[in-house]
């Protein structure tokens, strides 16, 4: 049986488990085995996006408006595609500049301005505090509901309880303590919080598991699958009104998706996990699909749970936001209810912890530090600042959570809390123009950014925050209806008469219009100064390998002074190690008494930026280094030089690429030459062999006849006839070698003209008639009627035909030899084939026989008198006229040699080209 002590013990045990995970991950990191240096852990940590608002609220939203909960997840899913360059650039810039928060990012880009950082921080705090309140409310409500198990009692309004009985207060205090322990162990915020990220990734798994468990129980335990839930909801008449009353019009779908896509990068906690805690740019490629997949999984059961809740509690007595918890309770599943509660707890704690850390960094660096620096201008500052900084951060965390709690106390069930999710999103969306503009547009200035952010923020307050207060009853509602002082075109949610969009879309439209307009207009009005130009180039050119590596600085400072300065904020040991490391990488001698060069000053400033933000770091470094301010033209000069060097090195690179290309080409040409040389050698060697063979017989017989006059007359006759035939063979060989050489070299003589193919075939058969008769061969001629003309060389074509026919004669069997000569007419060409019923050619020989001096060795009864050049020459001739020559055969099944000759124009142009 559940009860207060058990639930509290379990909650504490869960938080303890979280701490154990974090502690373990920190230990592993100290030993050099980073747990979070893994793309999956990175993607899971991004899922801190899914808060209690997702966990409980999606179901509530689905119960009201059907699929209206989806844009919040579709936006980031679509937006993830942009991460590969957008988020990558944000990470690259932040790593090189040691940027630790979105406020610092925007401030650093626009000339390291305290004012700008402060404004971003204020917007973030105002936008996020209610969001934290929502988490506290979720935890405290779910705790209270679970406490009443097995009854289902909606929690009474917190504001009616005395403060010391309010669970939310204890939740807030506990989380503050927890966050301080988690997040402020190290000072340099640019050091990754290994433990924190590991714990967040762990929480992402828990909340997904819990919601999936409830979803499975509802869908497959209470019903027979998705279709069953839908069917029953339809029967009960729930489905139709739900989709009818959907508040999400298509324009809202777009604006909600857009908001969510922005929020997933711009919410302080998202910037923290996605940019600051990122350990490798390569992790992005997995996050791009794994994070959307996570969103898909966590949303699969939202609709079934919402419908099941509506079916289970038809009277509306149970808040739809609690269905995830109350459905298991209603069916007596106490452990599932406990798991569900833990899932909600993990969703809320993950958000609160990361958000509080991110906000505390911003508050410390961009609000408190500037004030402290001003304060110490007139008074002596403490030597060791580390403890001051830690104290500031810890207090900030504490105060942020207390503010969250206070908002929850005040707002309670009011509209201003219930609808806060998208209102928060709309607040952080104000960062988009300056952040993304700053990454890609050199022209953005500090004044422009201030104007844009300010304008957007004011419009947001006027069109979204104030109305939400009015709807909560804290402000008179009349100005919502009639406009302030009755001025109609100033009605907050129908500004300048724009109505019918829904409040979020309306706010987004006007606030971003004002924001972008002011940012661009003011930036253009006054051109950027030196500092702004220098910073702009560091950001915009971040992806270029040859961007200026250091900030632009000129002045006098000693290394020792810089070191002492940094030590005051970061501790001596750490700074000493960092400086040693820096000089080792730089490759120069580490001598603290030397004057520091620009690179060293920049290094010290970057080191400090990690701890106190870029604007404060700039102020601190300036306090020890006597800086001579650079004029704009000097900055432009340095940047110009950099771009000249860039252009020069690009040209060099281009040249060396060309050279490399040329080398590769030369190498391959050389290889080709060597191959050709080898081919020529082989050819010569083959020709030599083919010449020597007949010569051998001729010489041997001639010598024998010459030496021995007494040889028998019959032998004498036989020997002489061998000599004659070998001489003929020699002649044939010499002719064919010359023939081939002339064709191959392109110097062949061609007498092209119209050739009648049918006539040519008949002529060739007549010419070989004697051979057929001698061997008793049956010749079948299959030629269509009529004349068919091609453009070719008659004698050459005849040469091919005779070669194919005489080959066929050689290989048909001595009895029942049969040769078929066929002409086929295709649309493009004529195909002539000569088929014999000889022994056929094995497949492995079919390529070889077209090579020079490669007689079909394995063909039984191969004629030793062949030169081995007939087929290669024939193929050359056919290819000269744009046709092909090939063989089809299988062993013991005869062989068919075919060639094609193109019709008409093809042959003509081809020939023209050859001549």
């Amino acid at each position: 049986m559940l009860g207060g002590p058990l639930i509290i013990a379990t909650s504490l045990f869960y938080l303890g488990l979280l701490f154990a995970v974090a502690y373990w991950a920190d230990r592993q990191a100290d030993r050099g085995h980073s747990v979070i240096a893994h793309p999956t852990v990175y993607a899971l940590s991004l899922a801190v996006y899914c808060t209690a608002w997702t966990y409980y609220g999606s179901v509530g939203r689905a119960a009201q408006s059907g699929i209206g909960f989806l844009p919040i997840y579709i936006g980031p899913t679509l937006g993830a595609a942009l991460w590969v360059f957008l988020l990558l650039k944000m990470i690259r810039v932040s790593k090189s500049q040691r940027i630790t928060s979105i406020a610092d990012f925007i401030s650093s880009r626009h000339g390291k301005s305290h004012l700008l950082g402060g404004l971003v921080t204020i917007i973030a705090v105002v936008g996020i505090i209610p969001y934290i309140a929502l988490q506290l409310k979720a935890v405290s409500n779910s705790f209270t509901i679970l406490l009443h198990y097995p009854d289902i009692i909606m929690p009474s309004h917190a504001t009616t309880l005395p403060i010391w009985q309010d669970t939310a207060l204890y939740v807030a205090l506990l989380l503050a303590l927890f966050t301080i322990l988690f997040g402020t162990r190290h000072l340099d915020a640019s050091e990754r919080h290994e433990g924190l990220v590991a714990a967040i990734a762990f929480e992402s798994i828990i909340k997904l598991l819990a919601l999936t468990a409830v979803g499975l129980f509802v869908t497959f335990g209470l019903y027979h699958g998705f279709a069953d839930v839908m069917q029953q909801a339809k029967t009960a008449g729930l489905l139709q009104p739900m989709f009818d009353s959907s508040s999400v019009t298509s324009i809202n779908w777009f604006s909600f998706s857009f908001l969510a896509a922005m929020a997933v990068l711009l919410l302080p906690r998202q910037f923290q996990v996605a940019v600051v805690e990122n350990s490798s740019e390569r992790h992005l490629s997995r996050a791009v699909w794994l994070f959307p997949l996570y969103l898909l999984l966590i949303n699969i059961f939202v609709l079934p749970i919402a419908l099941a809740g509506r079916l289970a509690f038809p009277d509306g007595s149970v808040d739809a936001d609690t269905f995830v918890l109350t459905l298991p309770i209603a069916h007596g599943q106490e452990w599932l209810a406990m798991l569900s509660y833990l899932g909600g707890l993990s969703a809320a704690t993950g958000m609160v912890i990361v958000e509080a850390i991110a906000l505390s960094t911003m508050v410390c660096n961009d609000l408190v530090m500037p004030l402290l620096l001003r304060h110490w201008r007139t008074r002596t500052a403490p030597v060791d600042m580390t403890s001051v900084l830690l104290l500031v951060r810890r207090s900030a965390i504490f105060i942020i959570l207390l503010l969250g709690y206070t908002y929850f106390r005040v707002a309670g069930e009011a509209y201003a809390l219930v609808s806060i999710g998208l209102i928060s999103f709309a607040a952080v969306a104000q960062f988009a123009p300056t952040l993304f503009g700053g990454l890609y547009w050199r022209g953005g200035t500090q004044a422009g950014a201030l104007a844009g952010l300010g304008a957007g923020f004011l419009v947001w307050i006027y069109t979204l925050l104030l109305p939400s207060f009015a709807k909560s009853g804290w402000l008179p509602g009349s100005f919502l209806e009639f406009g302030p002082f009755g001025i109609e075109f100033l009605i907050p949610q129908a500004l300048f008469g724009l109505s019918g969009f829904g409040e979020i879309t309306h706010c987004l439209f006007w606030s971003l219009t004002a924001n972008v307009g002011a940012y661009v207009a003011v930036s253009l009005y006054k051109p950027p100064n030196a500092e702004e130009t220098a910073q702009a180039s560091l950001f915009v050119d971040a992806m270029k390998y040859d961007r200026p590596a250091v900030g632009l600085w000129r002045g006098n400072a000693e290394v020792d002074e810089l070191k002492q300065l940094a030590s005051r904020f970061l501790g001596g040991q750490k700074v000493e190690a960092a400086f040693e490391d820096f000089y080792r990488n730089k490759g120069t001698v580490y001598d603290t008494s030397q004057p520091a060069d620009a690179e060293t000053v920049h290094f010290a400033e970057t080191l400090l930026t990690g701890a106190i933000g870029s604007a404060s770091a700039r102020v601190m470094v300036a306090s020890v280094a006597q800086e001579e301010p650079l004029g704009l033209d000097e900055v432009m000069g340095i940047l110009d030089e950099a771009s000249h060097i860039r252009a020069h090195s690009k040209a060099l690179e281009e040249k060396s690429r060309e050279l490399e290309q040329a080398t590769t080409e030369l190498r391959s040409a050389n290889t080709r030459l060597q191959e050709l040389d080898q081919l020529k050698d082989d050819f010569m060697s083959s020709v030599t062999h083919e010449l020597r063979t007949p010569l051998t017989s001729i010489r041997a017989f001639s010598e024998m006849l010459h030496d021995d006059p007494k040889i028998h007359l019959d032998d004498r006759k036989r020997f002489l006839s061998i000599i004659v035939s070998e001489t003929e063979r020699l002649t044939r060989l010499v002719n064919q070698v010359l023939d081939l050489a002339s064709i191959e070299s392109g110097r062949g003589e061609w007498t092209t003209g119209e050739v009648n193919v049918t006539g040519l075939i008949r002529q060739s058969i007549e010419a070989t008639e004697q051979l057929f008769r001698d061997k008793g061969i049956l010749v079948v001629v299959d030629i269509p009627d009529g004349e068919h003309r091609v453009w070719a060389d008659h004698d050459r074509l005849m040469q091919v035909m005779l070669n194919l026919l005489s080959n066929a004669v050689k290989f048909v069997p001595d009895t029942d030899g049969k040769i078929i000569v066929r002409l086929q007419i295709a649309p493009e060409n004529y195909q002539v084939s000569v088929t014999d019923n000889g022994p056929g050619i094995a497949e492995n020989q079919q390529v070889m026989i077209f090579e020079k001096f490669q007689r079909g060795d394995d063909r039984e009864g191969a004629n030793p008198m062949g030169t081995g050049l007939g087929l290669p020459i024939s193929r050359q001739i056919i290819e000269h006229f744009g046709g092909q020559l090939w063989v089809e055969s299988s062993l013991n099944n005869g062989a068919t040699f075919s060639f094609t000759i193109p019709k008409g124009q093809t042959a003509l142009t081809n020939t023209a080209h050859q001549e």
Partner: protein
Amino acid sequence: MTQHILIVDDEKNIAISVDYLLRREGFEVSVAHDGEEGLKLIKSLQPDLVLLDVMMPKLNGFEVCEAVKRDPALSSIRIIMLTAKGRDAEKEKGLTLGADAYITKPFATRDLVTQVKALLE
């Protein structure tokens, strides 16, 4: 006792001429027309000397030579390689494989006979 010579050459006319030439000198002569047949006859006839062409279908002369010299029962048989590819590299290869002499085509008939006789003494 008449000495037995085997001619292995796929060129029929060359085989005819050498056959005639050596018979006239009083040798007993057999002829094979490719490497495979040649090796078979070497094993069955156990000739005293083989005139072995290099470029032949099926087994080439080098392969036959190697097989003969590797077989202890045949290794005493003298081998003269005949080749139309008069390259030093080829000659070398034949000799390292164990051939006793190497004659380039076309050859003087007198030289051939002298070589054969010299090896059979």
